């Protein structure tokens, strides 16, 4: 006997994502879901972004890691509000976890919430958290073939930060062709904004921060 179901398998997650989406909309908060491999520099990008936009935007952060609150400590040092989620082994954040974190964040004062997902180039992109947009980070040390090899994240993101570009000008032995990355990414995603940045030197942050500011103003 066959029974037709026709139901989304991740509908439980999607219900929480919808709840989070409403939460952000009601408070006119811009929420970004930042996704990358481990070690691409997400937290360094966040601390510099928070510092550079200190006088223009109130940014809060939800940190997702398998273990430790190391990243939350780095965010806290900037003075920004932060909540750490430890997934205890899970390779991605779920919308329910984010919903729980939102209760602990003093969101009433915030204009932007950035969720730093668990470092992983594949799994997090399959779980909606209720964000306005996904933001991908790719560091030059990872190689310029990653968008072609791991297309899902790059196809779904509204922005891509290519980080650690200072390594290229140092003459480090890194084969990373930015133009190749751009053409590979544009094949997957025609409207994505791409920012070349260095969280270490601050290069490229003016344009990225202006874009983030503009996106936040669109919510308000």
């Amino acid at each position, binding site marked *: 006997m*066959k029974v037709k*179901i*026709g139901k*989304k398998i991740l509908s439980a997650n999607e219900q929480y994502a919808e709840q989070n989406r409403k939460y952000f909309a009601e408070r006119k908060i811009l929420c970004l879901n930042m996704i990358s491999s481990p070690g691409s520099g997400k937290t360094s990008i966040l601390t510099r972004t928070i510092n550079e936009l200190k006088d223009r935007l109130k940014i809060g952060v939800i940190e997702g890691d398998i273990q430790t609150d190391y990243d939350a400590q780095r965010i806290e040092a900037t003075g920004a509000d932060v909540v750490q989620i430890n997934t205890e082994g*899970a*390779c991605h954040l779920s919308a329910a976890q984010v919903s729980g974190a939102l209760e602990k964040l003093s969101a009433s004062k915030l204009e932007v919430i950035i969720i730093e997902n668990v470092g992983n180039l594949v*799994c997090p992109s*399959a779980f909606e958290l209720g964000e306005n947009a996904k933001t991908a980070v790719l560091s030059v040390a990872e190689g310029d073939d990653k968008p072609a090899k791991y297309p899902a994240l790059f196809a779904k993101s509204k922005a891509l930060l290519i980080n650690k570009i200072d390594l290229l000008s140092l003459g480090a032995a890194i084969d990373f062709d930015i133009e190749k990355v751009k053409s590979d990414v544009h094949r997957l995603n025609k409207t994505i904004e791409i920012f070349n940045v260095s969280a270490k030197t601050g290069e490229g942050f003016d344009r990225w921060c202006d874009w983030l500011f503009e996106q936040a103003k669109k919510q308000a």
Partner: protein
Amino acid sequence: MHEMSVAQNLMATISAEAAKQKSKPIKAKISCGILNVINDELLAEAFSAISKGTSCESIRLEIEHKPMRGLCKKCGREFEVDFSKGRCTCCDSADFELLEDAPLILEEIEFETG
């Protein structure tokens, strides 16, 4: 390995339906798009691990992967997108938009008869 989360959600739905039907499920048909990044072996392994000793233990998963479709802005045709080429398969134009990826769906459950 997000297949474990998918397996847990899948089993919850199948168990609920099995209780309703008062019958043993033997097969589940699933469909997904490429952006769901589902690996068949990993999902089968995850499902088998969590369903051991339950009524879902002997279920076979049948997974259909639906290709990404594009709409060509030059010739207006819909086509199956090959990301390594990134061109319309009819007119070779690179000017096309991606249509929405297929969601991850539990299509059908087959139960033991008799």
